[in-house]
């Protein structure tokens, strides 16, 4: 059972680490906070594996755990409680675009501004935008958030308007 749990954990980490990175980068700014939140998400994910029976899609499950953890996460709480203070992941290094083409540098700048703008939205709107950008369907979003599909639509529209205002010059009129 423990081996199976380890196997699933490693597989999820390998296949869905980007999803977790994006949630972490959205809800935590400083490297130390990002490390805290990432570890907290991993801890909760590990604990959730015995309850995973395959009824939900893996991404839906991981989104739920990651978002539930991130939205209720309290800054610095884990760091205070943990014995180890060494950062396990350098998120800035993780997100750096290594290619040096002009196009990728421009993308990098846009992404930096986009993360900044998403962080200025309310926590719930941030999560809706995050999932929208990741291509999650309205049905899944409603399922993950526990609200109706129409509510997701209204919220997303409003969040997109705010995002367009925050990213003037990058996003064409909404």
């Amino acid at each position, binding site marked *: 059972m423990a081996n199976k749990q380890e196997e699933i*954990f*490693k597989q999820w*980490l*390998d296949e869905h*680490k*980007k999803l977790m*990175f*994006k949630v972490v980068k959205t809800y935590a700014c400083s490297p130390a906070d990002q490390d805290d939140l990432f570890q907290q998400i*991993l*801890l*909760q994910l*590990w*604990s*959730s594996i015995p*309850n995973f029976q395959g009824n939900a899609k893996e991404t839906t499950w991981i989104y*739920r*755990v990651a*978002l*539930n*953890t991130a*939205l*209720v996460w309290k800054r610095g709480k884990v760091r205070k*409680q*943990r014995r*180890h203070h060494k950062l*396990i*992941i*350098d998120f800035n*290094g*993780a*997100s*750096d675009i*290594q290619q040096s083409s002009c196009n*990728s540098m421009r*993308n*990098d700048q*846009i*992404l930096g501004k*986009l993360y900044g703008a998403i962080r200025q939205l*309310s*926590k*719930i*709107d941030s*999560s809706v935008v995050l999932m*929208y*950008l*990741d*291509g999650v369907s309205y049905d899944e979003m409603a*399922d*993950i*958030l*526990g*609200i109706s599909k*129409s*509510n997701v639509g*209204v919220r997303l529209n409003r969040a997109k308007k705010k995002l367009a205002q925050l990213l003037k010059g*990058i*996003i*064409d009129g*909404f």
Partner: protein
Amino acid sequence: MAFDELQKTWQSQQASFKLTIDSDMLLREVKRNKRFFESAVFWRDVREGGGSILMSVVFLYFGLRMDIWSLYVTALLTLSVGIFVIVDRIIQKRKRPELTGALMGYIENSLAQVVHQIWLLKNVLWWYLLPLGGAIAFFICHVAWLIRDLPGRGLIFLSVYCVFCVLLFWGVYHLNQRAVRKELNPRKEELEQLLNSLKNANGI
């Protein structure tokens, strides 16, 4: 740039994550953190619930040995605090928020837990300080009665002990109320705001 293009740019960052994770190292770290959290929770429960039960056993032992019946009452009241703490912990563990459920339910449950914590700390006088304080006061009064014929030293000691207990309990009470004001109330407001924002499609 339109939103569709922005979405594509966002999704393109997946390809740019160059960092490879050492999953074995992370797994070790996660397991270590889990053990640490579990042990922290276990020792907190032992400290808060077990401490009272241990004290009640000590009171009972001395009550039987020295034949002071007021120590039985003290043991009983101290035991009641320990039992209350343990029962409350068990109930709260059962109500722990389901992390893999929808966000709405998770926030509702987290809020309920914070509200319960606030209730506990606001009422610390009734379930913790008063039974323990009453137990100590009862014992002191009985001892004072037993040594009423002795010269003043015993009574002075008891008075000093009494004042010490009152000050200690007053401090504990105010520390708890401070925790409610500084930590739990802001947390409650934060969760309520999240919940309202989630429930209301028109937002905050």
